[in-house]
């Protein structure tokens, strides 16, 4: 039997749904964690196989095309790392159910070809963090207002996608989902109110990038230019805000804002280089930021909510987490030798067509992010080490997570040329399609 002809994508989707159902029926948190871990590992394998397989799938509206294929293992790994970084004491069957559902939504959205389905999945995706916020008794109004606006704009925009106003609404909806300034208030709120894992899996898959690529191939140039300026402002703003934050969660939220805006900016360039950079950055930023969150969550599990006001000196107790924090943080800003280096270079060089001022602003955003990361590193890991009576060494689960992240961040850097070549091909196809196809409409 030819392995590539197996329905790997369908298996991934099915397993994530089955995993969600199974986790919902388990009462013991430990068992739920192990079960969820097993499901996510198998999903990662299936997703990787789906991205490599060439055979046609069974589901009509889902396919691992050029755009989706590399994102399947990336998104699966993102969810796996999220679970690996969750402390055993904080895992609940409900969290596992939500995680598996989020896995399904992400994988389904990235492989979905029907605009109405993608729009539905984007709407469903919004509900998972809301569920989390509600179940934790956190304030939901701010998030609800932003996301209601997002849904309204998204649906209206999709309905009128053949008209400029529809495209404008769609674009606005996606910018809102990406946390564009000044409509970004929900991002810090979400990271502060919801479980870290839930916030991560909502923000890091960068579904707005996917939606922009699938739903907005024909946006007029002036709209893209305006959106790219907004993204650029957000990238610089997010970086600057990340530097001055005194709480780790808000620091992380603003760093995410800055990084995701950079990806959206690259999408808005709508040039071969820009799209190539966007597709590469999408992969590198998601993984690097997931790795950074992994370290932060492991620290929070040990020491509670973390402040950046003083130096904590955690290096001596958890050096592995310190190294993980540093390399993933630097990878997210494009440090040489890591997964983020080539995409960042591509982005900054790709922006030259917009003028040296734009490249300068991008370099400033990268500079701010780099400063913010090292400031957070020094605050968390240097200083007088705290004395504790219990061992704070990393758990086997965390050790596996660190190995996976470290290898991904470094090996990803070495495999960049191959990834860039394939992403460049995809970018050209997307541009070609944009030139030939009609705008997406609601009537299919």
């Amino acid at each position: 039997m030819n392995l590539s002809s197996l329905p790997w994508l369908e298996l991934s989707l099915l397993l994530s749904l089955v995993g969600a159902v199974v986790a919902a029926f388990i009462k013991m948190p430990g068992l739920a964690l192990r079960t969820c871990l097993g499901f996510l590992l198998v999903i990662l394998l299936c997703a990787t196989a789906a991205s490599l397989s060439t055979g046609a799938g069974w589901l009509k509206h889902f396919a691992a095309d050029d755009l989706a294929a590399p994102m399947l293992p990336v998104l699966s790994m993102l969810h796996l790392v999220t679970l690996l970084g969750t402390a055993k004491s904080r895992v609940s069957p409900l969290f596992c159910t939500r995680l598996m559902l989020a896995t399904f939504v992400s994988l389904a959205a990235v492989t979905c070809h029907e605009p109405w389905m993608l729009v539905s999945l984007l709407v469903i995706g919004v509900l998972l963090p809301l569920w989390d916020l509600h179940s934790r008794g956190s304030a939901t109004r701010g998030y609800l207002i932003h996301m209601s606006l997002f849904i309204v704009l998204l649906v209206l925009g999709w309905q009128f996608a053949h008209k400029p106003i529809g495209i404008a609404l769609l674009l606005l909806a996606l910018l809102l989902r990406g946390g564009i300034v000044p409509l970004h208030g929900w991002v810090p709120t979400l990271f502060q109110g919801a479980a870290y894992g839930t916030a991560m899996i909502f923000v890091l898959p960068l579904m707005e990038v996917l939606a922009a690529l699938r739903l907005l191939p024909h946006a007029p140039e002036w709209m893209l230019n305006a959106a790219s300026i907004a993204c650029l402002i957000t990238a610089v703003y997010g970086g600057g805000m990340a530097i001055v934050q005194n709480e780790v969660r808000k620091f992380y939220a603003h760093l995410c804002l800055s990084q995701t805006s950079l990806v959206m900016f690259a999408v808005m360039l709508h040039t071969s280089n820009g799209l190539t950079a966007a597709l590469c950055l999408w992969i590198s930023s998601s993984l690097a930021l997931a790795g950074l969150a992994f370290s932060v969550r492991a620290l929070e599990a040990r020491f509670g909510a973390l402040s950046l006001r003083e130096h904590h000196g955690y290096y001596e107790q958890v050096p592995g987490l310190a190294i993980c924090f540093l390399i993933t943080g630097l990878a997210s800003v494009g440090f040489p030798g890591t997964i983020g280096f080539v995409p960042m270079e591509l982005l900054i060089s790709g922006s030259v067509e917009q003028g040296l001022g734009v490249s300068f602003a991008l370099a400033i955003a990268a500079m701010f992010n780099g400063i913010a990361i090292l400031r957070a590193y020094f605050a968390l890991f240097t200083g007088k080490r705290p004395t504790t009576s219990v061992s704070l060494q990393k758990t086997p689960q965390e050790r596996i997570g660190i190995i996976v992240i470290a290898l991904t961040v470094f090996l990803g850097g070495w495999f960049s040329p191959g990834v860039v070549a394939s992403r460049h091909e995809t970018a050209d196809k997307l541009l070609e399609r944009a030139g030939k196809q009609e705008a997406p409409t609601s009537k299919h």
Partner: protein
Amino acid sequence: MPAHESLLSWLGLMIVAPPAALLAVFFAAFLLNRRLQEEPIGRLIQGTISLSLLAAVSASVIMLWHRVAHHAIELGDWVITPHYHLKFEFVLDLLSLSYVMLTLVLCAVIGAFSTRYLHRERGYQRFFVLFALFLLGMVTASLSDTVETLFAGWEMVGLSSVLLIAFFQERPSPPRNGLRVWVVYRICDVALMLAAILMHEINGAGDFDHLVGDKAWPAHDPLLIGPHFTMLGVLFVIAAAGKSALIPFSGWLPRAMEGPTPSSAVFYGALSVHLGAFLLLRVSPVLDSSIWLQVAVVVLGLSTSAFAYLAGRVQTDIKSALAFASLTQVGIIIAEIGLGFRYLALLHLLGHACLRTLQFLRAPSLLHDHHQLENAIGSRPREEGVMWEQRLPIKVQHWLYRFALERGYLDSILEKWVARPFVALFRSLDGLETRWARILDGEPKTKEARDP
């Protein structure tokens, strides 16, 4: 390709490969959760540097024997798209081989010194991991023939320097100073990044050969004239100013002395502080594109030198005094580059780096010697100002003293006009954001994060 050229390419790669392999060993140890003992680390360091040095010396001998003045080693196109070309390439020439051999010799000395100096220090392995990163960065930057390769090495040097400044991390000031240095480095990185982009714009590639011609350094083919080249030169000078602590970035140099003595010696006495000068030597034909740029470089070098001389005169600790003495010479080297004396600048750089490394390494013993001297003569040795200082009016003397003591007010100017407004602006924006979030959430206060 003739046999000696293939051999040169192989040797060139052999200069870079051992430091890369050393870093890979440390990375594998981290992944396997193994702590390396002091002795194996010492042997690894010495073995690595010996191999690289052997390759560098062999390459130099072959080049001299075959009268090869310039040999490029292409590592292939890393990324190639119709609009973008990322290429990693090394070059063997007088400049690169001189600087890489200087790096390897000084790193060998410092490595041997550090294995004893840091014996039983808690951060022993951490020190050598950062040392290995620095070594790889220096070797990469020294041999670079494209701006991307240079940038990669440049960044590695910057990160390792900053983390070594914060080496004694239990004290509050080393990380604080490390962060300050990082900020300056990031600013100069922006300039280098923009220079790289501009190079791509001008030539369609980041190769130095494309920019200045493939003649052996310091000769160059084309006449580089035009506003683009002047702009490029300005960006390179800003990048070099940050890395070499030239005015107005000089404030970070004494802060960098927080690190252990071996790292101070290798970074700020010898190699890292000269990296800016090395960059200007590499792109020196670009400086020739404008007389104003050359004048600016000379003025920058001389003013840095004068400032460092004054500041160094009032330092009360030996490492800071040496740091400013080092900066005085770096300023002169920069001025020499601006004046077009490339060979002189290179010779000055090599000699100065060696001298200053030895002085830094002697610094802890020097204090001991000084105490012995004081005990022997029964009083402190007399310190007299040089003749021109005594001829100045007393008010000017006092002003100069204050100026030197405050290190030219450079730090306070940057803090007052750059850092504080930046922090104030973003803090106020943060306050607005928080208030807005509270209004939206309809609560008087935000809920604290509870679970990860």
